[in-house]
């Protein structure tokens, strides 16, 4: 019997003990369940979105804005062209649409034709939200400029005052300068016919 052998046996025993204390885990483990849980959470959101779209409830579920009924907040923004600043009081006496948009926003491109259509019935002032001047000009060149004025909200301060969730977002302002309606998300035919035009008619 060499002196190493008992040592070896001891080592083997230790290893066995270690195994007992730390048995190889083979059952369910949380870390292996996490991907499934994450995926299911995403899938549930997607399913709710999908079925609410299918049942037609999704488009109309708009959050009421705390700004509705209040006078327009002070909005001293530089205009896109020239050195002047935006003066919203100049538009008093008629219904006015304020449209927050950005060149980097895909739904804004989608709503451009609808805004062009609306501009025949109501004055629209656009506010470019967190955008660069050059990008805004490109956007207007590409998708049309039906706006009475375009102002630049470079740092999003005006958006904050208006309570903008994200672009695109549109506000209807009454002749008295009070906010009548707020629509978050892109404008399409349905929004025009069911929300914006009825609200404008009610003002007149």
């Amino acid at each position, binding site marked *: 019997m060499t002196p190493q052998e008992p040592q070896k046996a001891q080592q083997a025993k230790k290893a066995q003990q270690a195994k007992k204390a730390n048995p190889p885990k*083979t059952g369910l483990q949380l870390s292996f369940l996490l991907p499934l849980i994450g995926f299911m959470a995403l899938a549930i959101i997607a399913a709710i979105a999908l079925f609410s779209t299918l049942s037609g409830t999704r488009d109309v579920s708009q959050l009421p804005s705390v700004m509705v009924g209040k006078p327009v907040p002070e909005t001293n923004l530089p205009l896109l062209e020239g050195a002047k600043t935006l003066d919203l009081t100049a538009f008093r006496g008629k219904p006015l649409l304020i449209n927050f948009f950005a060149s980097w926003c895909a739904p804004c491109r989608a709503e451009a034709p609808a805004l062009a259509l609306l501009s025949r019935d109501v004055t629209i002032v656009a506010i470019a939200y967190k955008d660069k001047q050059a990008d805004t000009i490109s956007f207007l060149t590409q998708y049309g400029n039906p706006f009475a004025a375009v102002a630049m909200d470079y740092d999003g301060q005006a958006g904050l005052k208006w309570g903008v969730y994200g672009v695109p977002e549109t506000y209807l302002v009454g002749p008295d300068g009070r906010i009548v309606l707020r629509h978050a998300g892109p404008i399409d035919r349905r929004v025009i016919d069911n929300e914006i035009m009825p609200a404008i008619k009610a003002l007149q």
Partner: protein
Amino acid sequence: MIAEFGHFALIVAFILSLILSLVPLIGVARVDHGLMRLAMPLTYGMAGGVFIAFAALLHGFVTSDFSIALVASHSHSTKPMIYKISGLWGNHEGSLLLWIVILVLFAGILAQRGRLMPLALKVRTLAVQGMVTAGFLAFSLFTSNPFSRLDPAPLDGAGLNPVLQDPGLALHPPTLYVGYVGLSIAFSFAVAGLLEGRIDKSWARHVRPWISAAWCALTCGIALGSWWAYYELGWGGWWFWDPVENASLMPWLAATALLHSVIVVESRGIFKSWTLLLAILAFSLSLVGTFIVRSGLLTSVHSFASDPARGVFILAILLAAIGVPLTLFALRGPSLSARDSDTSENTDQKNSDFALISRDTGLMVNNFLLTAATLVVLIGTFYPLGLEMATGARITVGPPYFDATFNPIMAVLVVAMAVGPLLVWRRGIGPARRMALSAGGVGALAALLAGATLASGLSIAALAGLGLVGWLGLAIIGDIAHRLKPWQTGALSGRLAAIKMPVWGMWLAHGGMVVFLIGAIGNGVFQQEKIIRANAGDVIELAGREILFKGVEARQGPNYVTQTAILEMRENGQLIAVMEPEKRFYTAERQSTTEAAIRPRIAGDDYAVLGDGDDAMGYSLRLYRKPLVSWIWTGAGIMALGGLIAVFGRARNYRQNIKVPS
């Protein structure tokens, strides 16, 4: 008649794919080699049916058979032939069929080529591939039949969306699909491994070329899409963080992580369950990328036909294709990693042991960063949807978010990219470290100094970007120099030959990243632009050039008419180019597109776009000088080339290794 035949072939392929999903698995369970070997002919039959269906639809498009509803709504008799063909996949039904074609093509290649694979693994992989195919064939047949007829047939078609009538876009979807679908093979391998309950080095060796090939195709496909957006959208940009772009970027990021983690499985036999998860994730993201925009869940400029009713089917497919493997992963994954340590006792001692500074850690960092980047993009893409569910507000998350989150992660990744290849397995850093890292340090400093002195007023982010380029670029060169030692006398060829193909592939792929960064940063920092309203005869100055606007003329194209602006560009009084940006009006589709005029050069592109206007009011013109912008796509091409060399270099090494004993 031919369309009905194609439809029938598609139904036959569907039935064969159902059999393929089941019978070979029964064969594996019963250890019945006859049943197992059925997987191969079933795969060929399924592939044949889909090919016939595709050929039938192609015939419809080429001969402009407007009695087929799909041809009538997406083609036109006056369209050039290439766009008649590409019109096939410029729509939902046709692109879905193209997807399935590539799916069965890859299954066929696997059935034919994978002779060296263990039969059970191969058969299981093919069966899983059959299940995926069955799901898509069902989707195509039941919700998106490309062969529906119109009665009576219209006299002419409605035409293809003019924006899609473009050579870049004719190639972009097929390339991207090869990448997406290539990941389906990795996915099928992963699910087969989970079914078998065993992942080993041989599994990794067989799956790795597929991952590399898919990654190459994805890289090319995304680059083509970005290039298309650059010259066709006329925005002057090359990446917009649009949901569709993000949807292709996410699988690329996951595939890049997978590409690296499978190396660890092959070389060291660890990271197994993580690699499986990545394989499932990468293909899941491909599925999401292909289909989420078609379900009407996300708004995008790129999306064709979005139809919520189809969305339900898509969601069902996603649930089955992602949910089932993830469930399998939750059940089987733990035992797979437990087996890691079992096998390690008889092979390498304590496999899962590695030092803090080691290639194992390096690749772990790589995977961590790439996964984090994937998650950041995932959140940026789906956060608007989640917010909408919670509050009803629809918003867009744009570049401001991604600049603040994605870019810093990538910056850390680039820092690590210089160090990773120098590390050695299990412990330590290789002998090339001194040369490569000091070269990288010198490069970073030189780039920072050059940036700070040559151009004033650079932002911190721009300077950091320049430093990164110098760091990674020179570190790679230092690494290569250390391996080749060109200053030593004698037998450079011997040292050249000693470097294996995959190592060259790695250097090229990483070097491609440097080239890409040079383009992205150069264009982002040094771009100059002018947007003006001009009348004929006006001279505009931009970046040391004088551009004479000579006026606008009308021209006639094959299926459109144009307004073309003539711009003469002079440098130091010398005429260097005539730029002709145009607006096209497609008569059949009654739509117009903007065609930028681009003068591409290595040093940078000149880019001109014609906007609205008339002779009385003047025309709005957008002129750009975009330094180094073409390096962006060149870099992506070099990356893909590196991947390709790794695929074929490995295949050659592998064949040579096999031949030796025989």
